[in-house]
């Protein structure tokens, strides 16, 4: 069967990999999108991601329910997001610096608390075999879709709708685009940003739980490879639009899946080079979209990097 697919195995494996690997990208970028729409950048999402992965794994191991693990990961992310939001609400605090601090704090705390859980095997999340109709095992493998991916896709659509059609969504956009206007209308800018950062943290925490509970599906210190940071680039690439975040996450996921996919058809020579594809893509995106002469279209006006 493998042989009959031949080179077709590569795009199928990339697609399957994209769906698998994009899920954490998706959740982290949607969280970051929400936070940045409110006018703050949370660079600490990398730390929240790792913390979420650890918390999810521990809780799943201790309770036997991976879904409780996902929830716990979300709440761990919420708490760290809240921490970022509260610290940044103090006068003269820079959100970027706090974010970097939170990134180091989150990963360090996760490694410290998660040490005893590196060995044991926790129950992981189930997948839906959407490819059961196919005769090819590769197609079947590619279409093993995790529920969290679907939740993430729905979340993207929901966020898009919320930003347009609800008071909360419009308040977040207002606070992120013109704090003065929001203040003039009596909204508490810091409170809105704190909430947006906390909810963004929740989403990133859920993204982290996917890493430890589905793919790769274990807890160790090398689990995250910078997805939390790349998601920041991804949000810029998506122009702060949730639906675009979904497509961008798929693209980044596909880039990450390129190396393993090529390896599966026997191309091993440039393995490490192909594994670097997502980082090259990140760099490429930043070079293509950032310029000294132009500001980014669609960027929330209150972001400290665009102001």
């Amino acid at each position: 069967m493998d042989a009959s697919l031949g080179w077709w195995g590569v795009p199928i494996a990339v697609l399957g990999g994209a769906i698998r690997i994009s899920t954490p990208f998706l959740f982290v970028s949607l969280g970051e999108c929400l936070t940045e729409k409110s006018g703050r950048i949370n660079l600490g999402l990398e730390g929240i991601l790792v913390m979420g992965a650890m918390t999810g794994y521990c809780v799943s191991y201790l309770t036997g329910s991976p879904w409780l693990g996902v929830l716990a990961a979300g709440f761990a992310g919420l708490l760290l997001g809240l921490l970022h939001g509260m610290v940044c609400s103090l006068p003269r605090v820079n959100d970027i610096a706090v974010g970097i601090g939170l990134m180091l704090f989150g990963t360090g705390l996760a490694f410290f608390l998660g040490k005893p859980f590196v060995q044991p095997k926790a129950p992981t999340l189930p997948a839906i075999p959407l490819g059961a109709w196919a005769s090819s095992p590769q197609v079947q493998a590619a279409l093993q879709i995790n529920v969290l991916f679907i939740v993430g896709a729905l979340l993207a659509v929901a966020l898009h709708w919320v930003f347009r059609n609800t008071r909360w969504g419009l308040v977040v956009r207002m606070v992120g685009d013109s704090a003065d206007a929001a203040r003039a209308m009596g909204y508490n800018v810091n409170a809105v940003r704190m909430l947006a950062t906390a909810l963004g943290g929740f989403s990133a925490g859920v993204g982290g739980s996917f890493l430890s509970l589905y793919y790769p599906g274990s807890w160790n210190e090398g689990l995250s490879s910078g997805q939390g940071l790349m998601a920041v680039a991804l949000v810029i690439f998506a122009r702060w639009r949730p639906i675009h975040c979904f497509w961008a996450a798929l693209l980044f996921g596909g880039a990450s899946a390129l190396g393993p996919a090529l390896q599966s058809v026997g191309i091993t020579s440039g393995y490490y080079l192909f594994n670097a594809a997502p980082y090259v893509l990140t760099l490429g995106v930043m070079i293509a979209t950032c310029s000294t002469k132009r500001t980014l279209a669609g960027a929330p006006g209150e972001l400290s990097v665009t102001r």
Partner: protein
Amino acid sequence: MLIPPPAPPSESALAIECLGMTKRFGSFTALDDVSIRVEAGAFHALLGENGAGKSTLVKCLVGYYRPDAGQITVDGREREIRSPQDAHAIGIGMVYQHFTLVPSMSVAENLVMARNDVPMRIDWRRERERLAGFMETVPFRIPLDAPVASLAAGEKQKVEILKQLYLERRFMILDEPTSVLTPQEADEVLGMLRGLAQRQEVSVLIITHKFREVMAFADRVSVLRRGKLTGEGRVADLTPAAMAEMMIGARESAPGESHRKTGGTPGAVRLALDACHVHDDTGLPAVEDLSLSVREGEIVGIAGVSGNGQRELVEALIGQRELVSGSVKIAGEPFRATRAEIRRHRVFSLPEEPLRNACVGMLSVADNMGLRNFDRPPLASWPWLKRGRLRAQARKLIAEFKVKTPGAEAPIHNLSGGNVQRAVLARELSGDVSVLIVANPVFGLDFAAVAEIHARILAARAAGAAVLLVSEDLDELLELSDRVVVMFDGRIVHETAIGAADVGVIGRAMAGHAGSEPAAT
């Protein structure tokens, strides 16, 4: 104690009277026993220099400040306004000098979000119908789906007013609402407000510096100086000179009086722009195919509504922005605004927002005054700076240009806008100036500062400098320039010698209706 329920918002214009309003900030009395009465349906102007207490008074009215003494009556009943929410409940609304709209949101989103009772889920179809119905009742058209960022300044100002009407405010306070509009747009907006006032739909209290607008539109005027009411009356009974005297006292010269000195005949071309193209922050063309020359001893004024490429043009000239194509020459030599070229050609500039564009806010006044020459003898003997000489230079300039600062070592961002402007002007005009590029030099300054800065610019011209003056204030341009060009959409659409300048033609050109009309008749 029984608290009377708040009266429902009135259906027609409110009459508001302030009695004995006093507001102190520490030992400083910003507002001293001021009483003003605005009749229902009046168009009432509030005049005064910067710091005269106008903003303090209206901020008390809209609940941002609580007065230390005094009372406010609305339609004859005493009311306490503790917060902006109280003011809104009564029906008092304010249009600020700076736009309070959210740039990335559409006009419809801005209007709906301005309401107090925004539902959790917004039913856009219903809101749209309501907005369409509301738009039927107002005298101008605004595209509801356009993002506010894409609107011209005049349209934004209309949306601000629209918002107050949409919120059913019956007493509207406007803080210099026409500072960013063309004369035609200003007339249109003020005429519309006057119509609303005459129909008793709203009372208008307007803060302005422009006597023309007071004379043309207001019924009554109140004048403040140093926190005190120094005069009031019916506009019909007053002249601009009388109002100016109430504003600034008899000691200083009245505004409107021409500072123009007949300059000598302009000499050779000093600054020449040829087919210049410049892009804006989004990479779109902001200045297109612009050619212009300024001669020695000549002031060329660039008129235009803000956002038509003037800012980008000035930034390109002073080296803050890249020239996409075209050339800038000074005295026949190519000029790329490097530090060496700026020094050699003696190019100086007073850009708009000098604190942001021409100063380092955290550095001291002395350091900022030395930015042009701190690294040259006598202030430096390479590689050492001589801070004593830097301070001495600053003290001399501070005295000469009357910069009010706590000292030469105070950070410049602590100074008021006018004094930052003076400090930058001191740096730029203290030496021998060959080319001077000035953008909105008196924006937000009081009369005394305006007169002084204008005099300095004219003095530079008299000394033979080629001056390029970009301003959104047409009166300023007409007063200072020898030649006026109008920029619209990145191009020069009209050019006239000052003697032949026609405000009507210039105004139409500013609004993009230059067409094939002759320059001036």
